[in-house]
């Protein structure tokens, strides 16, 4: 069964743009002495190719559950107050944030370490995918797919990817 939802775990998957730093204000409370945050923004290049845009796709209900599981794991290790995680879906232009995590805690070390943990875990397990669309009609390589306008594109895979179990029965960790 799913753990009961905590109101101080604020998890959002949205196609709406958001400002960098917007979550930090949300997690401040009078009993917190520290706020740490991470923002991931979309980069304009990969392997020498110019990236036009990124497209994110999520298995939304499961992504929310997995992020809440990460929040619970972080709370078990550090003394935290509010955890806010927002991940964007759909088309994200270069230079805009796709992910933000902000965590408040009474003391700085807890928030700093928990943010690091949370982004690493998110990249390992949360069912969200990113497709890079390139400016050039790059030569097709393995795993590459085109977009409707004929631009080369590729679905990415995080180095951190760690499924609980692959259907083949092999442990991917």
């Amino acid at each position, binding site marked *: 069964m799913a753990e009961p939802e905590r109101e101080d775990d604020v998890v959002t998957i949205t196609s709406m743009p958001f400002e960098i730093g917007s979550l930090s204000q949300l997690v401040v409370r009078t009993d917190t002495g520290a706020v740490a945050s991470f923002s991931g923004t979309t980069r304009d290049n990969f392997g020498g190719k110019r990236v036009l845009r990124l497209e994110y796709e999520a298995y939304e209900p499961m992504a929310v559950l997995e992020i809440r599981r990460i929040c619970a794991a972080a709370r078990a290790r550090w003394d935290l107050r509010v955890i806010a995680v927002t991940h964007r879906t759909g088309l994200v232009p270069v230079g805009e944030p796709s992910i933000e995590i902000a965590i408040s805690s009474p003391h700085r070390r807890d928030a700093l370490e928990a943010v690091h943990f949370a982004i690493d875990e998110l990249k390992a397990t949360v069912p969200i995918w990113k497709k890079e669309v390139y400016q050039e009609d790059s030569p097709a390589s393995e795993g590459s797919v085109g977009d409707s306008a004929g631009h080369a594109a590729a*679905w990415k895979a*995080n180095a951190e*990817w760690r*499924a609980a179990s692959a259907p083949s029965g092999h442990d991917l960790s």
Partner: protein
Amino acid sequence: MADGIGVVVLLFASVREKVGRGKLELRMCEGSTTSDLLAALAQQHPALAAVLPSCALSVNRRYLSTEQVALSDGDEIAVIPPVSGG
């Protein structure tokens, strides 16, 4: 009325594009497992056979934590290719 069980299979990202659909509805025999489902998917969609071994599976929004489980009528299974969020 139909015999067996009905399950929904959700496909994402590269897997969705290979099949051309994000959602499949399959009827399976009573007592079928996730392994049976994977075999059926590979047979019905040959394009999937090569990529399934690199994917994880979730059943009702939880990663499958053992090699296989028995499926129930109405289960929601997702084929989860390597993730790239963040």
